[in-house]
C-alpha cells in the first residue's frame, strides 16, 4: 500500500486526468448509485402509502427476505422460464456472436469500395426496424395459410409446418431472425478494429510466404482479438437477457412453454398486478447472475493473457 503522502502526490500529478474523469463520475453517483437503494424493495413487500415518501414506504413495508426469489423459482413455470432464458441466450451467443465477426471479415475482403459501402448500409438496416414491425412481417411471410413459404413446402411435397406455432422450431426461428437483424450492425465494431490494423503487417506476412488463410489467422484475428474478447466478456453479462422485444412480439400462446423468458414473465406479471417488489427481485437475480458471468469470463480472459474488462 502506498503511503498517503505519495498518494497525494499522485493525485496532484494526475490532477488533469482526474478532472477528465470527474463529469462521468458525478453522473455515476447521482444517476446510478442514487437510485440503487431502490433495489432493496426486492426483499420487502413494498406497499406505498399516500403522503409517505418512497423511503418511508420502504421502512414501513414488511420484510420478506428471499420470498419472491423462492416464489419465482418454485412456481410451476419458474424453472422452465429460467431454462428458456439460458438456452435461447446460449444459442444466440454461440451462433450469434461469431456471425458479425465473420461478416466483418467477409466485408473486409471486398475490394470494390462502392459494393462494400452498399452492402454495409443495407445490412445495418434491420437493426432500425423495431420488432413490432419485423414480427408482423415475419408472421405474414411464415403464415401456414398464405405466407410465402407455403409454395415452398408444396414444392417439397411436405405438409406445411407452422414455424411460428411449433414448439420444435420456434426457438430456432428466434435465433435465426435475431442474428439476421443484428449481424450488420454488430459488424461495425469489428470493421472499426479491422480498419485499425497496420497494412505493413500483412505485407510482412505475405513476404514470409503466408497465403490468405494463414494471414487471417496470423495477422487479422490476433489483431482484433482484444476487441473480440472484450465484446465476448460483456456479452456474457447479458446472458439472462434473451431478447425481450423480439420474443414479446413474436410469441404466441402455442409456444410459450419454450419461449417465455424472465423478462416476458416479468412483463406479464407486472401488467397483471404491478408487483414492483417481485419484479425487482427477479431483476436483481438477473443482475447478480450477469455480473458473476462477466467476472468469471473476465478472469478466464486475463488468465489466458488477454486484456480483460477490469
Amino acid at each position, binding site marked *: 500500500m502506498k503511503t498517503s503522502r505519495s498518494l497525494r502526490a499522485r493525485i496532484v500529478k494526475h490532477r488533469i486526468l482526474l478532472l477528465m474523469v470527474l463529469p462521468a463520475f458525478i453522473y455515476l453517483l447521482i444517476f446510478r448509485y442514487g437510485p440503487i437503494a431502490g433495489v432493496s424493495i426486492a426483499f420487502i413487500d413494498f406497499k*406505498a402509502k399516500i403522503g409517505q415518501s418512497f423511503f418511508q414506504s420502504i421502512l414501513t413495508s414488511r420484510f420478506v427476505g428471499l420470498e419472491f426469489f423462492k416464489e419465482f423459482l418454485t412456481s410451476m413455470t419458474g424453472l422452465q422460464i429460467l431454462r428458456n432464458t439460458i438456452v435461447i441466450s446460449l444459442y444466440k451467443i454461440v451462433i450469434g456472436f461469431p456471425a458479425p465477426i465473420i461478416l466483418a471479415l467477409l466485408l473486409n475482403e471486398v475490394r470494390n469500395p462502392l459494393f462494400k459501402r452498399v452492402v454495409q448500409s443495407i445490412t445495418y438496416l434491420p437493426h432500425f426496424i423495431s420488432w413490432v414491425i419485423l414480427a408482423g412481417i415475419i408472421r405474414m411471410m411464415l403464415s401456414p*395459410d398464405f405466407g410465402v413459404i407455403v409454395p415452398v413446402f408444396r414444392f417439397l411435397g411436405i405438409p406445411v409446418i407452422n414455424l*411460428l406455432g411449433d414448439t420444435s422450431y420456434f426457438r430456432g426461428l428466434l435465433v435465426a431472425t435475431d442474428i439476421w437483424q443484428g449481424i450488420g450492425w454488430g459488424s461495425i465494431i469489428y470493421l472499426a478494429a479491422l480498419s485499425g490494423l497496420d497494412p505493413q503487417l500483412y505485407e510482412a506476412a505475405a513476404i514470409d510466404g503466408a497465403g490468405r488463410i494463414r494471414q487471417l489467422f496470423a495477422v487479422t484475428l490476433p489483431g482484433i482479438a482484444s476487441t473480440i474478447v472484450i465484446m465476448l466478456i460483456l456479452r456474457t453479462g447479458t446472458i439472462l437477457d434473451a431478447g425481450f422485444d423480439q420474443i414479446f412480439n413474436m410469441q404466441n400462446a402455442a409456444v410459450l412453454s419454450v419461449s417465455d423468458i424472465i423478462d416476458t414473465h416479468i412483463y406479464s*406479471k407486472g401488467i397483471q398486478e404491478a408487483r414492483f417488489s417481485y419484479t425487482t427481485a427477479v431483476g436483481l437475480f438477473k443482475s447478480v447472475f450477469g455480473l458473476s458471468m462477466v467476472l468469471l469470463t473476465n478472469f478466464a480472459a486475463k488468465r489466458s493473457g488477454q486484456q480483460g474488462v477490469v
Partner: protein
Amino acid sequence: MKRLLITAAMLCLFTAAVFAAGSKDSGKKPAEADGAQEITWMIHMDLATNKSWTTTALPALLKKYGYNVKFKIIEMGTHNGTEYYEKLKTYIASGGAPADIMHLAGLQQPAIDANWYAEINEDQIKKNMPKYYANAKKIYEKIFAYGKDAATGKLYGLVSWNMFGPNRHTMVYRQDWLDQLGMKVPATIGDFEQFLRKTRTVDFNGNGQKDEYGYTSGANSPLSGFQEVFGAYGVMPLVWMVKDGKVQRGETLPGSKEALATLAKWYAEDLIPRGVGTTETRRDGFNQGIRGSYGQADGYAPALVKGGQNYEEFYKMQPKGIMLPAPSFKGPRGEWGTLEWGPRKYSVSFGSHLQKDPAKIEMLMKMLETIAVNEDTFVASMLGEKGKHWNFTDPAKSSGATKFLDPYTEFNKRLDEVGVREMSESAYGPVWVEDVYNKFLDPLAVEYSKHNPGYYDALMTIPFATQNKYGLDLEKMTKETYLAIITGKKPVSEFDSYVQTWMKNGGEEMTKAAQAFYDKVFK
C-alpha cells in the same frame, strides 16, 4: 475490494439521502378562487384533458342545477390504456395522492393498498343517487361487488356498466357467401360444420386459390379463442362458472373436452386455417374477404351498424360484400352463446382525504347523478356540442344513433379538444340512467346486442390473492395445451392429464378460494 464496497455503500446512502429529502409528496389543498369549488379528477386514459371543451362547458351547465364548481384533471399524459395504468401505478408507488374523484377501469390494487379510497356504503348511494342506484340493481343485483376490495369487502367504488347491456356481442357472417352456398344462417353446430365444409369448395374471391375458410380464431382472440364453439357445449374456458352453487373453472369442465374434440376434427379435415391462434387474426381475414365469419369477441353491437367501426372497415374493403350480424349456433344440448364482459364496466371512487368530509362526498354523488339524469349535461359529457362535435346520424331525428363530426372523428383529437370518447364511455359521465341514455343508442345496435345469452365470469374478473399467484401460469398452460390438441400435436385424450396437472399446480387451491370468495360476496 473492501475499500471499494465501503465507498460504494457510503455513496449510495449519501445520494439516496439527498433525494429522499426532496421526494416527499405534500398533500395539496384545492385552491378556491371566485367562490367556485375545485374538484380534482383522475380519468382513465385521460379521456378528457384540462384543455378539453367539456372540462369547462360542463361546470358551466352545472351552475343551473346549483353547483358552483371547477374541474381539474390530474393527467398521466397518455391516451393509451396500457401506458396510462403503467404511469398511474408509478405515481401511486412514488407516494402520489389521489384526486377527489377517480374514474378508472376498476379499483386498482396498488391504490387500495395505498389507502387511496374513501369508504362508501350502499345506503349512502341509494339516498344520494336514487335513479342510478335503482338502475344498477336492475342491471345486476350484485353489481357493487366490482367496487369492493376483495380482501376486506369494503365498498369503494360506484360501478358503471355498458349501455348496450351485459351482453352486447354477436356473431357476424358473410351473407353473400351464405347466399352463394344456398344456406341459411347456421342454427346448429352441425349446420355450421356444413358451412365450413362448403366454404372450402368455393373460390369466393376468384383468385384461383382455395384460401377461404368459414371460421377462424386469432392470436389476438381473447382467452383461448373459438368462444362460440365452447359456448355451444355449455362452457367457457378461462372464466369462473357456477352451476348449482358450485364454482368451477370453465377450462377444466367436460364440455371443454367435447369442444376440443370438435375443433381437432375440424382442423384435421382442413375446415379451419392452419394458423389458428398463431398467425391468424380475429377479424382481418373477414375484412380481406377470405374468412366467412368472425367470432363474437369482435361483434360488438354498436360497431356493426352504419357508422360503426367494423361496419365501415368491412365495406371499405369489400364494397360488394354483405355482412350479417346473427346469433351463433347451438350445440348438441341446445346450448349457445359466447364470452361476454358482463355487467360491469368501470368504477368511480372518491379520494380517502374525503373520508372525513361526508358532506362533500354527498355533494359529489348528487352531482354525478345530476350529470346523468339531465339531458344537457349528459350530452355535454358524452358527446359534446351538437352540430359542432356530433350529430344524430340522421340529422332530422332527435333520438337514435349518433356520430362524431370531422375533425373530431380522430380519436386523440377528440379526447384532447372535446373531452369525449363515445356513447357508453366518456370522461365526465361515469354513471348513467337508462331512460336518458336510451335516447342516444342506435336501435339496430340494441337489437344486435340481444343476440347472445352470454357467458361471463361469475366473479366479475375481480382478482383475488390465490388467483394472482397461480392464475397466469395456469392460463398459459391451458392455452398451449388447447392449441396443441386442436392442431393435432396432442390427442384429445391428453385433456384428462391436463386437468390433473392443472389441479395439482395450484388449480385446486385456486378453485377453493374462488368458491369462498363467491359464497362471501355473490351468494
